[in-house]
C-alpha cells in the first residue's frame, strides 16, 4: 500500500495594534487584543472546531487507517488558551486517539533559522516543551516556518536531535525528480526529508472553490482518481497545507467539509492507500536519494523562495534590526520582554511588508491588517523602537545591578530587587566587582529592602 501524509499547519500571529511614534517610550503594550480575539474566535468557529470534528469522526470510524499531522505554532496555542480554550480541548481529544502526530517548529513561527542558530534552538525547544505539556507527546519530526529549508537549516535541526523534516517539493530543488518519495538531506544523510506535492496540495488549498478552474468542482472521486494516477512506483504523496484552508480560505459553502470527510474515506476503502504521519513514513520507508539545497526555499509564491518575507529593503531593515537584539535577549529573564521578543519574531510581520504584489496589481489579494506594506513597516518599526529601548534599559540595569546576567529565569520583582549572587561573566573584572559588591552589600541590601517595604 502506498502512503499518504496529510499535514495541516495551524498558526495565528499576535497582530500589532496601531502604534504611533509618540507611543515609543510611553506605551509598552503592542497588541491588538480586539482583532486577535475576533479573528481567532471566528476561525475557531469556521475552521478549527468543525474541522477537528470531521477528523475525529474519521478516526472514530476507521481507527488506525486514518492518521493526520499538525504543527501548531506557540503563538497560536497562546491565543487559543486566551480566547478559545475549547480549541485546545478539541486538539487534546485528537491527540488522545494516538492517530495524530504533532510536529516541532519555532515557537513564534519565526524565520530565526536563517540568522541565529542559538535562538533557533531555544525557540524549537520552547515549542517542543509546550506541545509536550499540552498533548503529552514530544515531537519527533520538524517543520520550519513556511517550510523554509536549506542544507544549513537541516544541519541545525539535525543537531537539535530531529531526524525527519518537512519541506516544499520545489522545482529548483527537485528538477526532474518527483516529490513522491522519501528523500534525505545530502550533507546529512540521516536527516530524512518529506516533500510537499504542491500540485495535489494546492488543488485543495487554492483551487477547491475556484469556479474558473477547469476541474471545478473538485469531488472526492476525482481527487482520489488523481492520486491513483500517480506513478505506481512512487510510494508517498505529501499533502501539506494551512489548516485554515478548511472553512476559512475555502468556505463551508464550497463543500470543503464534505470533501475532507469523503476523500480519506474513499482512499481507505480503496485499500490502495494508507495514511501515515511523517515520523511513521521516516521509519517505514526507505529514502531513495539525497537532496541538496544550498539556497533557502519555502512553500510561498511561484518563486518558492524567501522574497515574501525578506525581499525588499523594508523587510531587511526590520529583520536585521530585530535580530541585533538576539545577544541581549539570549540572557534576558524578564517575562514581558521575553513574550514580546517571541511575538515580534512572527514571520507574518515581515510578510505584511512585502511589496512584490504591487507589480502584479494583486495588492489586495493577500490578507494583511495594513493598507500598504509601508504602513506595516512603519507600525512595526515604531513597536520595535520601543522594544529596543526596553531591552537596552534592561541590559543596562542587569549590568549595573550585578554586572552579570542571572542564569535562571526568575520572576520580575526578584530580578529587579535582588542582585544576582553569582556573577559569572566579565572574568577579568570579576574580583574587582566581587570586592565592590561585598563592600556594598550591606547598605545596598538595606536600601532595597526599605524600598520594597515602602
Amino acid at each position, binding site marked *: 500500500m502506498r502512503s499518504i501524509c496529510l499535514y495541516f499547519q495551524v498558526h495565528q500571529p499576535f497582530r500589532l495594534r496601531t502604534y*504611533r*511614534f*509618540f507611543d*515609543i517610550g510611553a506605551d509598552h503594550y503592542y497588541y491588538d487584543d480586539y482583532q486577535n480575539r475576533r479573528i481567532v474566535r471566528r476561525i475557531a468557529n469556521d475552521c478549527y472546531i468543525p474541522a477537528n470534528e470531521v477528523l475525529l469522526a474519521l478516526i472514530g470510524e476507521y481507527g488506525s487507517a486514518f492518521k493526520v499531522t499538525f504543527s501548531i505554532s506557540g503563538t497560536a496555542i497562546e491565543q487559543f488558551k486566551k480566547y478559545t480554550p475549547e480549541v485546545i480541548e478539541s486538539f487534546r481529544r485528537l491527540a488522545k486517539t494516538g492517530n495524530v502526530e504533532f510536529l516541532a517548529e519555532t515557537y513564534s513561527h519565526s524565520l530565526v533559522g536563517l540568522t541565529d542558530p542559538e535562538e533557533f534552538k531555544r525557540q524549537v525547544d520552547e515549542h517542543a516543551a509546550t506541545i509536550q505539556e499540552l498533548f503529552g507527546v514530544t515531537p519527533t519530526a520538524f517543520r520550519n516556518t513556511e517550510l523554509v529549508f536549506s542544507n544549513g537549516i537541516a544541519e541545525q535541526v539535525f543537531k537539535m536531535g530531529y531526524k525527519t523534516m518537512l519541506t516544499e517539493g520545489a522545482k529548483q530543488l527537485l528538477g526532474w525528480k518527483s516529490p513522491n518519495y522519501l528523500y534525505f538531506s545530502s550533507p546529512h544523510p540521516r536527516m530524512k526529508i518529506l516533500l510537499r506535492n504542491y500540485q495535489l496540495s494546492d488543488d485543495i488549498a487554492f483551487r477547491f472553490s475556484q469556479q474558473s478552474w477547469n476541474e471545478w468542482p473538485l469531488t472526492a472521486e476525482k481527487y482520489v482518481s488523481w492520486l491513483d494516477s500517480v506513478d505506481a512506483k512512487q510510494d508517498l504523496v505529501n499533502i501539506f497545507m494551512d489548516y485554515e484552508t478548511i472553512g476559512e480560505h475555502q468556505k463551508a459553502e464550497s463543500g470543503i467539509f464534505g470533501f475532507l470527510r469523503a476523500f480519506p474515506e474513499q482512499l481507505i476503502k480503496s485499500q490502495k492507500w494508507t495514511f501515515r504521519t511523517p515520523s511513521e513514513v521516516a521509519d517505514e520507508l526507505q529514502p531513495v536519494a539525497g537532496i541538496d539545497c544550498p539556497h533557502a526555499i519555502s512553500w510561498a509564491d511561484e518563486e518558492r523562495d524567501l522574497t515574501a518575507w525578506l525581499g*525588499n*529593503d*523594508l523587510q*531587511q*531593515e*526590520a529583520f536585521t534590526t530585530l535580530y541585533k537584539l538576539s545577544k541581549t535577549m539570549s540572557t534576558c529573564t524578564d517575562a514581558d520582554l521575553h513574550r514580546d521578543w517571541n511575538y515580534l519574531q512572527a514571520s507574518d510581520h515581515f510578510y505584511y511588508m512585502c*511589496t512584490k504584489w*504591487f507589480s502584479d496589481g494583486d*495588492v489586495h489579494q493577500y490578507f494583511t491588517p495594513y*493598507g*500598504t506594506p*509601508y*504602513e506595516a*513597516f*512603519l507600525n512595526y*518599526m*515604531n513597536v520595535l523602537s520601543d522594544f529596543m529601548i526596553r531591552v537596552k534599559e534592561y541590559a543596562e540595569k542587569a549590568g549595573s545591578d550585578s554586572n552579570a546576567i542571572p542564569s535562571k529565569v526568575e520572576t520580575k520583582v526578584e530580578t529587579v530587587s535582588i542582585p544576582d549572587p553569582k556573577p559569572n561573566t566579565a572574568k577579568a573584572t570579576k574580583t574587582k566587582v566581587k570586592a565592590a559588591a561585598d563592600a556594598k552589600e550591606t547598605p545596598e541590601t538595606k536600601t532595597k529592602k526599605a524600598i520594597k517595604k515602602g
Partner: protein
Amino acid sequence: MKVLMFGWEFPPHITGGLGTACFGLTKGLLKHGVDIQFVVPKAYGDESQEAVRIINASDVTVMMNDPVFREYWNQITYMEIGSNLIPYVGPEDFQQMVSENTKTTVEESGRVFSEKFQFSGKYGHDLMEEVARYALVGAAIAANSEFDVIHAHDWLTYSAGVAAKKISGKPLIVHMHATEFDRSGENYNENVYEIERKGMAEADRVITVSNLTRNIVIERYHIDPEKVITVHNAVEPPEHSDLMDVEKKVKEQIVTFLGRITFQKGPEYFIEAACKVLERDKNVRFVMAGTGDLMEKMIRRVAKLKISSHFHFTGFLKGENVDRMFAMSDVYVMPSVSEPFGISPLEAMRSNVPVVISKQSGVAEVLNHVMKVDFWDVDAMADAIYGLLHYKSLNSMVITHGSEEVNNLKWEAASRKIADIYESLV
C-alpha cells in the same frame, strides 16, 4: 480623427493644473494621430490675470521650453475668443473682480471671429452670462468647422460643448477635472452644479480624472455609470534632467506643504501633524508654501500651538522657487480634504522627495510608493512623516520606487485611452 476641444486655459497662460493637464493630454493625442482644434476664452487685463495667479498659487507649473512648445503650437489650430472667462473663480468672486477691473479692460476681439462677432467690450459682469456667451461662440465654431467629436474640459466650457453638439450632431465628451463639490465643499453653487450636471447628462461620455471623481459624478450628479470612464492624469517628463542643486541653509530636515491655503487643501491637518512631530523631534522644520483665504487663521493656529519657531510660511511661490522648495524638502505632504487628482505629489516625487498624501485624493489611486493617510487622521499623518524622516529603508524605498512609478505615468498612455473613447463614438 478630428476633435473640437473646448478649454479655458492653455500654456503659457495657465493658472492651475487644468492648463498643464490639457497640454499634456493634447500632446499625447497628437502622437496617436488625433487632430485637435483647441478653443480657449481669452482673459483680459493683466491685473486680473495676476489676481487669478495669486489665488491659484498651488498648482502653477509651466513645464515646457520654447522649441517644444512652438513645434506643438504649429501642429494644432488654436483659437482665442474674446471673453472674460476666468478659471478657478466662482460667480461671486468673478463679479467682484470684474467690477474692479472694468476700467482697465481693453476691448479685443477673437482673431478668428472678429468678423462675425462684434465685441463691444461691454462683456457681462456675470460669469454665467460669460458661460452663455462662450456657448454661443461654441455653436458658431461648430457650425463652421469639420470635426468628428467634441471634447469639453470642466464646467465653464460645458455649455459650449452642448451647443456645439446640438448644432453639429457630433458626439460630446465632457472631462471632469474637478467637481463643484471639490471646489466648494457642501456650500456649492447651484448654478455651477446645474451646468455640470446638464453637461454630463447631455454628453455621450464623461471622462473623470479619478475613480474618486467618478463616484461623485455617479452619486451626486446621478449620471449613468455606463458612460463615465476614468482616465487618470499623467505627468510630463522633467523639463531639465539635472535636478536643482540647492544648498540647504538650515541643518534641520524640512517637511513641506505647498498649495492654496484653502479648505480643500487641508492645511490645518498639516499643522496638527507638525505639532505632534515637533513634540518628539525638534530637529525638523515645517514649511507652508502658498497663500489663500485660510492663511491668517493658519498663522494664528501655529502661534497658538507655540511651534512658530519651527513652522514657516513662505507666501506664494512660483516658477523656480517652487522647484527650489521641492529640492530643499525632505518630505512633501498633501493633506487635501478633497482632491480630484492632485499633480503636486508627482512633481515632488520627480524631485526625489518622499510624499505623504491623503486617501481622499485621486492621485492615491495610481500611486503605490507613497504614504497614504486619511486627511483627518493627523496621528497617522504625523507617524508617516516621522517614519520617512527616521527609518532609512522606508525613505530610500519610497524615493527609488516612487520616481520610477511617476516616470511610468505617461500622458501618451492616458491619451491612448482617450483616443479609444473617441473611436468608440464615431
